[in-house]
């Protein structure tokens, strides 16, 4: 059931990417899609009644959540940050060149 929420979040992001005409909103949509995936990974690693996977005194035999997806997501968040920064800087350049964020007006690909 909780996975369905992840898919919902992903679809919201996809809606933003596909339908919105403003470049900044598209970038936000992409970020939302990213977060949906992060959430999905974190949820996969969850175990019933688990604690943070840090071995300390008295917790040697406790139930831990899976640490691998967490490590992955941590890396992915940093990469996502860099990607967003790159996208935004590209958007700034496009704005300087075309004077607009409206992608209907930036149509170099028109056949």
């Amino acid at each position, binding site marked *: 059931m909780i996975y369905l929420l992840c898919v919902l979040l992903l679809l919201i992001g996809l809606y933003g990417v*596909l339908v919105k005409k403003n470049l900044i909103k598209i970038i936000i949509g992409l970020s939302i899609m990213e977060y949906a995936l992060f959430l999905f990974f974190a949820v996969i690693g969850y175990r019933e009644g688990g604690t943070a996977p840090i071995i300390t005194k008295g917790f040697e035999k406790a139930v831990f959540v899976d640490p691998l997806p967490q490590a992955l997501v941590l890396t992915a968040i940093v990469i996502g940050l860099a990607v967003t920064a790159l996208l935004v800087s590209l958007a700034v350049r496009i704005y300087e060149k075309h004077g607009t964020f409206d*992608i209907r007006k930036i149509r*170099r690909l028109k*056949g």
Partner: protein
Amino acid sequence: MNLLHYLIIIPFIVGLFCLVIPKKLSKLRDLLAIGGGLATFYFTIVIFLRKPVEWFYNDLLLLKVDNLSGFILLAIGLFGVLIVLYSLKFMAGKERLSEYYTYLLWTIGGACGAILANNLILLLVFWGFLGLTLYLLIGIGGPEATPAAKKTFIIVGGSDCLMILGIAIIWSLTGSLQMDNISIHLTGLLPTVAFLALAIASFAKAGAMPMHTWIPDCAEKAPIPVTAFLPASLDKLLGIYLLGRIAMDIFVMNKAMGTLLLIVGAVTIIAAVMMALVQHDLKKLLSYHAVSQVGYMVLGIGTGNPIGIAGGIFHMLNHAIYKSCLFLTGGAVEHRTQTTNLNRLGGLAKLMPITFITCLIAALSISGVPPFNGFVSKWMIYQGVIQLGKDGDKLWIIWLVAAMFGSALTLASFMKLIHSVFLGSPSPTTPRPVAKRNEVSFTMWMPMAILAGLCVIFGVFAYRVPLKNFIFSAVPGISFLGFWSPGLATLLIIIGIILGAIIYWLGNIKSLRTDTTYVGGEIIPQDNRVTGVDFYDTIKDLGPLKVIYKKSEKKLFDIYDQGARVIFLFTKGLKKIHTGLLPTYLIWVLMGTVILFFILVKG
């Protein structure tokens, strides 16, 4: 390392060095370029003397030199050196010179590779590489050369696709790609398609009629040494070499295909020379002749008898020599006067005597005037056509008339060129050269003089030098129909010239009185002169020809423009889908992914 590898490796490595040498050391770069050309030429001579040379890789005969390819290699080496030498002065001070020399050397290496290759795939690789360097070399001409370069690339590259098709069919028919052990009879559909595909590839390279349209555009925009090197000489050598290979070695010719070649040859000769007659630009006029002369070579090979094929191949060699020479003289004229418009030229014979004489020799040679080399090869082609008639071809008289008439028209259009560039009265709009030395520099007239000298040697000593060493060994079983003694003819012609000179001299003993023209007291304007540009302009208004000229001005016969029209019609619907909105494309991608996902999950 085999001897044959040097021919390919040396130009490539030297070219690479030319590319990376810093701009400050331009002298070193020039030296390197000419050194690379000379080294390649040296190895072509060594290989020519040692032929046949072969190179096996795992029992697969990949590179070889035989009697046909040996002298073509020699010619490539010679032209490479001459063009680099000529470019030193002509191209000096132009942009992107390092790239220019690199591409030039790579072209030499690629051409050697294509001629050496015995494997069809290897041939295809070098062939494609040559198309690329041709595109890059035309692009050196600056931004206005880009459309011409694109057109060339599309026509030559498109015909390369057909070549792949032909090679694929050959492989499926015989299971072999070695050129020396394939022999296909032209019966049935598949062999015919393969032959046509390869023939079209060679037509596009050499510039025969339906695929010729890139040559005039390229000649107009590209730097002249490039035109003199690629469309005028190297591409003819390669294209006709391939045609000769497929007609003599790979396929066993039949009558229908031979007749097709004859038709292509005859149409090319006449149509291109008619276009050349009415040109107003030196470079364009020469380029249409470069197309017209291909017709003779195709006609010669199409006759299918030894004398005709030998004539076609000999004409290919001769054409490379005189057409290169003509383009180089055109370059010298452009270098001095900064224009190639015939209307703005005139009276250059006194200012540039060496250019004039070399151009005159090459022009007489291309027109097939004895005793120059063009006559000998054309005469051999005529014999081939007559032999064809003896063997029972009903239409031989048409081919013969087309060839002879084309030759006459060639002479006519070169009279126009010689008159309006070198003779006639000087044009007031031509920038007058100021220095006393008006002739171009040594490195520029040297290649022209060598080529003109070759024209004379190959004509006067036709049997002893080129035919004996190059042609007879390549095409076995030649028997001449007629009698021609070049030495005697030359002697008679020289005697005639001396007689004429004596008469001229006798007439001039009493010094002539010259006066300004008097036309009823009218003051004659300075620009009222006979330029020769309007020679033959009246044929444009000649009944049915008028329609054809009008149509060809609208590019109705240009396969490139017609092809573009068809393709644009085809893509009209597809264009509407391209909105340029990125999300639309994304939706397409997503839909495709979903469909693929369903199919994969189900399967």
